[in-house]
Structures are given as structure tokens and as C-alpha cells.
């Protein structure tokens, strides 16, 4: 298992897997199979995949520890970058067909619509994370600071869930489903941190963080 996880080819396979939703959307677009409202179809699909990839990214640390498979960490950056890739596509469906590329219209909308405001906040938070995802940036920032910065993904995921919850009309099953998963993933980290803190000398507590 660990040998498979460490293989170069596994990384390639995961990359291809991450690209499948995109390729399916391209295929359906080319064949005109996006239903009656193609823009909405793409907007919803890319929004869904952003949230799913945020969840995949957040699952790595718990899985790595629970399954004792440290190699899983190799995939975390790629999953996170794919979340960013899908949110960019999602944003394009908004700024283009929804706002006709009008920046003033967009700002007004962001200021006025709370579901857009939180979605936009989530998007903004992901930008520095994508930029600093390289080894060079980890070195430049130093491990601790880099880690602290990348905790912004917790907030981005929560923003994504609230965004979804606020935009549905009355059937809240799907936003609650994603919300529950995000909650479990974040609560696990809290629990992990509390346990670690309990084991440490009080002096170290201040410096400790949630990974």
C-alpha cells in the first residue's frame, strides 16, 4: 500500500482523476448536453467540485493519521490546487455570463448579496494559498508561518458551505450534507489539537498549532 502511494504513477493517476470532472464538463459542452440552462449547469457543477475538492484536501491529514499512511501528504497540494482550479472556473461563469464582465456590477453584487459575499471571501482566501503552494514559498515563509497561513482553507471551506446554504431556496439537504462533512473534518482537528495539548508541557501550548 505504502509503496503504491509513494509511486510516481499514483500521483499521475490522481492528477488524471482530478481532471475527470473538468473533461466531462468539456465533453458535455461540446456535445451540447448541458440541459436547458447550460450556464447554470456549469456554474453549479464547478461550485460543487470546488467544495468537493476542498473536502478532499481537508481529508488528507485526518486520513493520514488515522490510517497511519504518511505518504498521503503527497497528494494534498494537488487536491488543494484543483479546488482552486475549479473555483476559478466557477468564478468565470459568474463574472462572464452573470455579470457580463462588468466589474462595477460585480462589486455591487458582492457588497449586496450575502451568499456572493461569503463565496467571494472563500475565493479570496484561496488565492494566497495557491500562490504560496510551491516549495520555494514554504522555504521563504518558514514551515510554521506557512502552516498558519494555509489554515485559511478551514475558513474557505466554511465560507463555501455557508455560501451554498444561503443560495438554495428551501431544500437544504445538500448544503447540510457538505456542511456535516466539513464540520467533522474540522472537529477532528480540534480534538487532535486538544489531545496533543493535554500531552504537552504548558510552556509549549502557546506555540502549538492545529495542523
Amino acid at each position, binding site marked *: 500500500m505504502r509503496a503504491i502511494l509513494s509511486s510516481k504513477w499514483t500521483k499521475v493517476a490522481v492528477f488524471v482523476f482530478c481532471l475527470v*470532472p473538468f473533461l*466531462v464538463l468539456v465533453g*458535455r459542452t461540446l*456535445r451540447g*448536453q448541458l*440541459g*436547458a*440552462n*447550460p*450556464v*447554470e449547469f456549469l456554474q453549479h457543477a464547478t461550485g*460543487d467540485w470546488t467544495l*468537493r475538492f476542498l473536502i478532499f484536501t481537508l481529508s488528507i491529514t485526518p486520513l493520514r493519521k488515522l490510517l497511519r499512511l504518511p505518504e498521503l501528504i503527497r497528494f494534498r497540494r494537488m487536491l488543494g490546487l484543483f479546488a482552486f482550479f475549479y473555483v476559478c472556473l466557477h468564478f468565470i461563469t459568474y463574472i462572464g*455570463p*452573470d455579470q*457580463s464582465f462588468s466589474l462595477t456590477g460585480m462589486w455591487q*453584487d458582492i457588497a*449586496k*448579496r*450575502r*451568499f456572493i459575499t461569503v463565496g467571494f471571501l472563500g475565493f479570496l482566501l484561496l488565492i494566497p494559498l495557491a500562490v504560496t503552494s510551491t516549495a520555494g514559498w514554504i522555504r521563504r515563509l518558514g514551515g510554521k508561518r506557512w502552516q498558519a497561513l494555509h489554515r485559511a482553507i478551514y475558513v474557505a471551506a466554511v465560507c463555501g458551505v455557508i455560501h451554498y446554504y*444561503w*443560495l438554495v*431556496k*428551501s*431544500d*437544504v*439537504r*445538500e448544503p447540510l*450534507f457538505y456542511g456535516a462533512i466539513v464540520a467533522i473534518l474540522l472537529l477532528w482537528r480540534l480534538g487532535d489539537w486538544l489531545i496533543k495539548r493535554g500531552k504537552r508541557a504548558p510552556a509549549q501550548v502557546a506555540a502549538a498549532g492545529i495542523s
Partner: protein
Amino acid sequence: MLIRPKPDLTYADITPRSVYFNRREVLRAMGIAGVGLAGGKILSSLAFPGQTALATSKLSGLVKSPFSTTEKPNSIEDVTHYNNYYEFGTDKSDPAKKSQNFRTSPWSVSVEGEVAKPRKFSMDEILKLAPLEERIYRHRCVERWSIVVPWIGFSLSTLAKLVEPTSKAQYVAFQTFFDPTQMPEAKYGGIDFPYVEGLRLDEAMHPLTMLCVGMYGETLPNQDGAPVRIVVPWKYGYKSIKSIVKIRFQQKEPPTTWNRYSSEEYGFYSNVNPAVDHPRWSQATERRLGEIFRRNTLLFNGYGDQVASLYNGMDLKKYH
């Protein structure tokens, strides 16, 4: 030998049993229906992007209507595969799939309340109340999409006059059929059922307000409100209540489903108005199905010339 006159065509005759292709059953047979929420949705959309067949029949002798817009109607494909009908699921693609077994025959509509002559109308009677007109109307959903549909029917006032509303009748309440066994998806809708709607009497009697029995030259498909619905083209789509079984004339303003769900978001009047935003999104623009960019939404959905006088002196923001 006695020659019997040919019996009249009845609604049951013109509504054949549905022949359709049920995606879910196929999936189940393939044993992949158990995969998770996300996976299942994706797999099914990958495997079967196709359509369900319609179980409608031709309506003949249609009269053209001066109320029709000259705008190009949407494809029947769009209008039958992008529906809000929460009794059959909340996704726009659900009603086309999940309403196919819905039994719409026999059917009758009870007209009651503050009327001199309350009575029940069978579908056959409704079809013969007046010449069937084809009216091409714009239809604007509160969710900011719009379509152009060639509806078939006649003014609701035709039926209303037959029952003779009394002077006490100020409002009209409508109710959709509800049967949880035929509509198992309803419990996830988040709104109460049966679905109810209402109009002020003058709105209900306005000639644009339609009692609708068909579209695109045929009887209504189940997902579009078979066998009979209301169409009010200057109001958001949810006012155009589907599959009605009851029409009640009354003195008090009736409760309406979406208003009960959230009165700030969905007013009783719900007139299309680009200047009055839904609390969560702007109503200034809409996307016509088939178009990429948004177009501007028109006050009263472009029917202001005919209906604006109904609301003279009224604060359209307050009474949204």
C-alpha cells in the same frame, strides 16, 4: 339498424398511458445506485444524458390569441426538462423523470366558496367550456430565468363567470393535488403541501390570467402541471400554480405556499418587478433559457400596458 353516434372524445381517451424510460430503474439494475450522493449524480448524468419521452396528446381546433407575444418560444425540450415542481423533487431535472407515473385521469376541479353556483368540473367539461386558444406568453421565474411558452387554454374568467362569484368574493384561492404516495419526493421539498396559491379577484378575472390545459399543441406534460393549471404571465412563476384540484372564491386573502415559507422573500402579489430585489438576489436581470448573457427584466414581465392599472396607487415594494 341503429346507427349510434360516435361518442365524444374524453380526456381519458386523449391521455395515453405514459411510455417512458426510467433512468433510476436502469441504474438500480446496474447495481450502481448505491454509490454516494455525489458519485451517483455524476454517474447517472454521464451514463444517461438523454431524455424522457412525453405522454401527451394533440389538441386540435386551436384559436390564435391577440395576447401572444411575437417572441420566439423556447424549445419544448427546454420547457419540459427544466421544471420547478417540488412535489416531484427539487432539482430542475427531477420533475421530468419523477412525474411520469402521476395519474391525471380521472380528474376534476372543485369550484367553491363565495359563489352562487358551486360545482365540480371534470376535465372533459373544462375542455369544452370555451374554444381553446394558443397564447404565447413570457414566463419569468423568481430564480431569474425565463422562457417563452405557447400555452393552450382560455381566460380563467370564463370558468369563474359560470359559478357566479358573489359580492363577498374578493380573492381566489387555488390548490394543487397532493398525494404523498404518488409524490414521495415532496417530503424533501422544505415547503408545506398541498401547494396553495392565490390571486385578488380582479387579477383572477383579468383576461390575461389563463386556465391552461396544454402547451405546444398538446395536452400538458405531467411535469408542466397536467392536466390543468393557472398561468399568470405578469407574476413570478410560482404564482402559476400547477395541477389544480380546487378553486375557492373567498373574502380573505388566502395563504400562499412560498409566502408561508418566507414572507420577506415571496410576497402575496409577486408581480415581476426589476426594481424590487429578492432579499438574496437581484431581480433586475434574467437569463432567457437558450441565451448565455442576462437580459433586463421588464416591469410586470412586459405586461404593464394590460395590468399596471390593477395596482394604481399601490406601493409595489411594500406589496411585493
